[in-house]
């Protein structure tokens, strides 16, 4: 147990040294590290609880996705049947199905047309054998198109994919450092933005669907009819976005939608000095807008954002240039945000914030300071106690623990792991626990000495017997840390990481570093008695 070949000794020193070296980038300012080669840039990342920031968990509104999918199928059915010049009635969405009734004589012609609507899931490469819709003949001319859950999930997946791209564009406009945006589970998106002073703007920017539409105002309806909610079937009542939420009757037909925008910029109106958002359409948008404005001169039209009327100006003259401006009593901030939203595009489905955790930079600073202080105090207490208890061997233990902690930082850096406040607690705890392996070895040596062994044989036996115990006792804690890593998020996961890595380095140092130190001492001193 105490004999190391030269190669083995060198290998141990080399490994420990290299791992410790990985922690070095953390001691240099980020700017300096950036100039280093890529492989040397790995470093610890401070968790949101330490550097401040926002953690938002968003869920795609799966009901909205489902509803949209069903409505889309309904519209497809209408189009297909119209194109085929087949009469139909009772076309509607019922639960998870779209129902339509055709004449018995037309059924034979209608069914194949409707079946064409059902595509294999996953496009041409789809191998699941599932289809986007199941067409069944319910008898009596009634045809049902059922959307299987797999098709809806597929749609949700696509929605999440698109939403992530759009959110990325939006968040990047905020100019924050290294935002993290990733899918979680089927219908969720995790957004983490570090170092944010105020999450309100972030939430405003992420939470908006930003579905923009240009539609006509229905002027045929009197205020009384609006009050009674009686509006023509091709119009609907929408609220104004501003504080006295004034109702507007807006035609359902969309003249131009936000998808046709190519650019949007905040600015100021030349005459009134009010903040506005100016926009440009693409070619098809310009054409549509030109036609619509030419046909409806002196009529009011509405700019609708997420089913709220931002403004409803009267068209003074045809707008053929493909650009325009939105003025809606904005503040500068609102105009800014709206421009960002319009540039980034609309989310395919509304997102709901289902979890939010923000830490202000002040608390983060305090937590770092507290974590540092606790680490120093904890380490000093343990180091002093070990020296008082085991003297020379206490010193050996302290060296081993120092290497242990350095290695923890090294591995954390190597993994680009996130350090959280509970994570720091995990390291402090590891210091308390790491010496346990030394205590186990030393107590065993004491026992072996008492049972009358010679110093060298006692040390040898002490290591042999204690190492088995160290292994067993650490694996149980490691299992707990692994489970914690699996179930935990954020700060708690940070704790699991440092705890788990701490156990690995503890076992490593006990088996190699401590043993090597003591073996070297034995070879050098040839002790007649062990001062333990």
């Amino acid at each position, binding site marked *: 147990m105490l004999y190391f070949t030269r190669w083995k000794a060198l290998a141990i020193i080399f490994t420990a040294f290299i791992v410790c070296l990985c922690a070095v980038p953390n001691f240099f300012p980020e700017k300096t590290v950036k100039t280093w080669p890529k492989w040397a840039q790995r470093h610890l990342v401070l968790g949101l609880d330490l550097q401040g920031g926002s953690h938002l968990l968003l*869920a795609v509104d799966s009901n909205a996705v489902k509803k949209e999918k069903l409505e889309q199928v309904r519209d497809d059915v209408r189009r297909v049947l119209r194109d085929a010049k087949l009469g139909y009635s009772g076309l509607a969405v019922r639960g998870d199905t779209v129902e339509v009734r055709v004449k018995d004589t037309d059924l034979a012609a209608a069914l194949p047309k409707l079946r064409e609507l059902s595509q294999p899931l996953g496009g041409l490469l789809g191998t699941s054998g599932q289809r986007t819709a199941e067409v069944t003949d319910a008898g009596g001319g009634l045809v049902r198109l059922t959307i299987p859950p797999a098709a809806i999930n597929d749609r949700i997946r696509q929605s999440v994919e698109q939403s992530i791209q759009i959110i990325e564009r939006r968040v990047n406009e905020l100019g924050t450092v290294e935002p993290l945006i990733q899918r979680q589970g089927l219908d969720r998106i995790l957004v983490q933005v570090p170092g944010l002073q105020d999450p309100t703007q972030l*939430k405003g920017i992420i*939470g908006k669907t930003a579905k923009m539409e240009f539609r006509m105002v229905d002027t045929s309806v009197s205020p009384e009819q609006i009050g009674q909610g009686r509006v023509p079937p091709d119009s609907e009542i929408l609220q104004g976005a501003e504080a006295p939420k004034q109702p507007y009757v807006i035609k359902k037909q969309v003249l131009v939608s936000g998808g046709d925008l190519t650019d949007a910029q905040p600015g100021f109106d030349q005459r009134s000095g009010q903040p506005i958002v100016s926009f440009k359409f693409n070619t098809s948008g310009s054409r549509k807008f030109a036609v619509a404005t030419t046909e409806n001169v002196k009529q009011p039209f509405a700019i609708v954002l997420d089913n709220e009327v931002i403004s409803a100006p009267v068209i003074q003259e045809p707008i053929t240039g493909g650009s325009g401006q939105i003025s809606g009593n904005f503040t500068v901030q609102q105009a800014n945000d709206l421009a960002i939203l319009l540039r980034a595009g609309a989310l395919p489905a509304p997102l*709901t*914030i289902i*979890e*939010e*955790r*923000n830490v*202000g930079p002040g*608390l983060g600073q305090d*937590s770092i300071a*507290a*974590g540092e*202080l*606790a*680490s120093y*105090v904890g380490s000093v*207490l*343990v*180091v*002093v*106690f070990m*020296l*008082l*208890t085991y*003297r*020379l061997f*206490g*010193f050996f233990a302290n060296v081993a623990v120092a290497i242990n902690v350095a290695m923890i930082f090294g591995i954390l850096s190597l993994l680009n792991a996130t350090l959280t*406040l*509970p994570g720091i*607690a995990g390291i*402090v*705890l590891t*210091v*308390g*626990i790491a*010496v*346990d392996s030394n*205590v186990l070895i030393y*107590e065993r040596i004491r026992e072996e000495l*008492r049972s009358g062994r010679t110093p060298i044989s006692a040390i040898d036996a002490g290591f042999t017997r204690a190492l088995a*115990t160290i292994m*067993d*006792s*650490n694996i*149980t*804690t490691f*299992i*707990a840390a692994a*489970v*914690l890593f*699996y*179930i*935990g998020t954020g700060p*708690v996961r940070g704790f*699991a990481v440092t*705890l788990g890595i701490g156990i690995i380095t503890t076992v490593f140092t006990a088996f190699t570093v401590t043993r090597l130190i003591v073996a070297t001492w034995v070879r050098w001193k040839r002790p007649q008695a062990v*001062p333990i």
Partner: protein
Amino acid sequence: MTTWIVIALAVFIVVLTIVSIMGWLPSMRIVPDDTTFDFMRFRRISFPISAIASIIAIALYFTHGLNFGIDFKGGTLLEIQTKSGPADIADLRTKLGTLGLGDVQLQQFGGPNDVLIRIAEQPGGDAAQQVAVQKVRATLGNDIDYRRVEVVGPRVSSELLAFGVLGLMLAILGILIYLWFRFEWQFALGAMIANIHDIVLTIGFMSIAQIDFDLTSIAALLTILGYSLNDTVVIYDRIRELLRRYKKMPMPELLNQSINSTLSRSIITHVTVTLALFALLLFGGKAIHSFSATMMFGVVLVGTYTSIFIAAPLLIYLGVGTTRDAPEKPSRP
């Protein structure tokens, strides 16, 4: 000032290190060598005590209840700091009371400027929680620094709870299987009973101390589980070793010897962990205060006690060593 303290401490440690390397320090024995306490006799006291304590803890859980934090209950938690002058909690309470948000709790948190606000989960799903936060922000105005805002909706909270409970059970199961492989099933079972005893008592403590029970608490419980087992395994390891070495020693005596010979280690490790936790508890900041307190109770007060007074004696009842050779009777001529 701080720099000087650090320098002074560094000098102190260097001097102490030199002194100890040179062997000028007297040898310190926290536990005398070769103790022979009859730990097994205590099982007649420790088992009833633990049984009663566990019953009390369970009763507390059902009567006093656990203070579920927003992780598991949903709702909103705001840690705010007033920018000018101490916070007027009564005034804040009236202001927030008019918002109709149901149960709103305010609590001084640290300094006179710091207030912790807890708002119960709002009916109406995930979006309703966001509306509540907006209302609170609008009411509190600009004279406030939001140090921490956490909003957990009903969907996430129910998942976190399920995950937490699942995690605890998974950990216990995983450890049980590991111990079963490494030892015999009696050891695994004994450790498990001791373990559940630890968790029950710690939950009782959290109920009395009204510590927020959240994800961090699950982390604390799992760590307590790990370390309490660490202790237990060390003693079990020794028991196994002695079982192999002394084929005829009676069980109580064998267990006593196992505990006595590992006693020094148990206590020294106990002290180092306590020192580390002590530092965390005093200086680690408010954010992990309840975490440290729970660990202090679980690891320091309960864990070691359990290993010595519960886990080890349990082996007698679980039938370890019953198949051993009968102790040799003193031979009579």
